[in-house]
């Protein structure tokens, strides 16, 4: 794809090109600045922040704020640091991403290759999950979780995130499988492969790019979710985002900005890593539905 795009790129003169790079550089700086400020201040002692310039580089380097944020900072009433909540988030995100991606793939498979009456209608309903404002469903969802005995548990959060992620993952996989040749499915049927065998042996091995899209999308959304975490989680199932809020809110006395910055970076780190590792497949996968071959 990169070859194709450089072939078709419009040729530009040297001056325009320099100008373009300058503008791009400016934008890059603009986006990186907040992160830079956070990083710089997370490795300073508190006095340097309170006593002076936020933008200045640290005079003494210290990892103490990172350690405190991870292990000892006051979160609510407990001095546990963020680490238990980090694991809470992991325990919630991994199953929620996996389940919603697999179900989305199955939905896409059925909606494109095993069409049935009213399937577009059902797909239309599923798309509601993408557009419905979450505030509207908070109370009914709390009631449902209460009735099913999942209130306040990680399993409950996983369920909520799977339900709301399914609309997007189904949409992704449906678009991707729409252009997947139906003759392949027919050939596999004649070869004697059943519903799941075709899915597993023929479709999934060709779904790499769209799986990456789905995983990145779901991972980022679920990891960054605050509303559901704050609404439906207990103390021992609270995700990272809620804990970070508590860290910032609950410090008594002096605000420990350096610890807050370190905590915020810790909370953002997993999504950053996912992007860096899989990001280049993301665009490729998003394009895959629209461009053939």
């Amino acid at each position, binding site marked *: 794809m990169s070859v194709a795009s450089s072939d078709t790129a419009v040729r530009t003169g040297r001056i325009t090109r320099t100008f373009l790079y300058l503008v791009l550089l400016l934008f890059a700086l603009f986006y990186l600045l907040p992160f830079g400020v956070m990083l710089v201040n997370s490795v300073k002692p508190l006095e340097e922040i309170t006593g002076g310039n936020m933008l200045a580089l640290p005079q003494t380097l210290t990892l103490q704020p990172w350690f405190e944020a991870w292990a000892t900072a006051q979160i609510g009433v407990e001095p546990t640091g963020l680490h238990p909540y980090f694991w809470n988030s992991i325990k919630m995100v991994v199953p929620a991403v996996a389940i919603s991606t697999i179900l989305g793939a199955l939905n896409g498979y059925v909606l494109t290759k095993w069409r049935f009456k009213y399937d577009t209608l059902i797909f239309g309903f599923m798309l509601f999950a993408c557009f419905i404002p979450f505030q509207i469903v908070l109370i009914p969802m709390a009631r449902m979780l209460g009735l099913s005995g999942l209130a306040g548990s990680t399993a409950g959060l996983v369920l909520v995130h799977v339900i709301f992620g399914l609309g997007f993952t189904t949409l992704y996989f449906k678009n991707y499988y729409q252009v997947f*040749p139906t*003759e*392949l499915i*027919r*050939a*596999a*049927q*004649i*070869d*004697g*492969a059943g519903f799941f*065998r075709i899915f597993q*042996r*023929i479709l999934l*091995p*060709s779904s790499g790019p769209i799986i990456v899209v789905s995983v990145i999308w779901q991972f980022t959304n679920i990891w960054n979710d605050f509303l559901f975490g704050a609404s439906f989680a207990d103390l021992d199932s609270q995700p990272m985002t809620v804990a970070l809020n508590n860290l910032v809110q609950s410090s008594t006395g002096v605000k420990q900005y350096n610890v807050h910055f370190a905590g915020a970076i810790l909370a953002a780190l997993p999504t950053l890593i996912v992007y860096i590792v899989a990001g280049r497949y993301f665009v490729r996968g998003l394009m895959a539905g629209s461009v053939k071959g």
Partner: protein
Amino acid sequence: MGFLDISNATKSYGSLEVLHKVDIQVEEGEFLVLVGPSGCGKSTLLNMIAGLEEITTGEIAIKGTAMNGVHPSKRNIAMVFQSYALYPNMTVGENITFGLEMHGVPKPEREKAKAQVAKLLQIEQLLDRKPGQLSGGQRQRVAMGRALVRDPDVFLFDEPLSNLDAKLRVDMRTEIKKLHQELGTTIVYVTHDQIEALTLSTRIAVMNGGYVQQLGTPKEIYDTPANLFVATFMGSPSMNLVPVRIVEQGGGLAAETFNAAGETVYLPFSAPSAELRSYAGQTITLGFRPEAFTDPGGADRDAGNIVELDSEVVVTEPAGSDTFVMTVLGGTECNARMRADVQVRPGDVTRFALNMDKAVVFDPKTEKRIP
């Protein structure tokens, strides 16, 4: 009862019937070609045999067992698709053995079958490649290998050559024909190419608008088309169709028409049927193929009833082996196939020879052939 029996099979999508009471018996070892224009229902019929489409009413039986409702994998058929439908994530070898694996054939036997088929189709050196790394012709071979390895009762081909370039298409056509002669398998083959149909088949079903227009050997279809559709669809260049009046002439019957100059021409029939006699005085359609309409020197010496006539040449089209010469008869353009080196120029009046033994007649209202 045949090997593959299609009896009164219809197919409807909702209230729309796209196949109407199709009745075809295929014998073991036959090569049946379904041919017809786009959208006539060829693929639908083939998919019904394969079990990929349900049969709305009627029955399809293979070796005497009704196949209605039987899963495609349990029919002992194999199919070659127009797009080849090779699994992109598997190697050629895995593509070939996938069906055997799904049917629970143990690995050593699969390997043996794969080796045999690869040898037969000369694709041994391709076995470890992915389909994406093959040329069109090679993919075509692999697709056939995947079908052959199953040793099915019936092979189904859906326009397998239409994605190849012209030369390769001719080569593969010959190869498929050879393969059929070697293996003696039963084949149902879909194409919209009438030359493919005529060269490959032992029998042809010409379809149009969801109806089988005619079922017969290539010779029957070519020489005695059942109706005007079959007459024009099969053969290239297509059959000349001239409106003529049936007149009594010296105790026999003749077709009366006029040449390019408007002069009346009589074309006597050698052995008119009683049916044709009943059309005396009426206008019907006379059909004759370009090769039955030549220069007198090029006419078939064994023919019993050659009628010679003069007419003006409109266009000449030298085609290497022959020269096609257009003239006007009965107000319609007619194509004559003359020897390559005839000396005729547009505007000349020249002598044509029409082999009336090969001519057929159609009722213009019913469009059916008059026997």
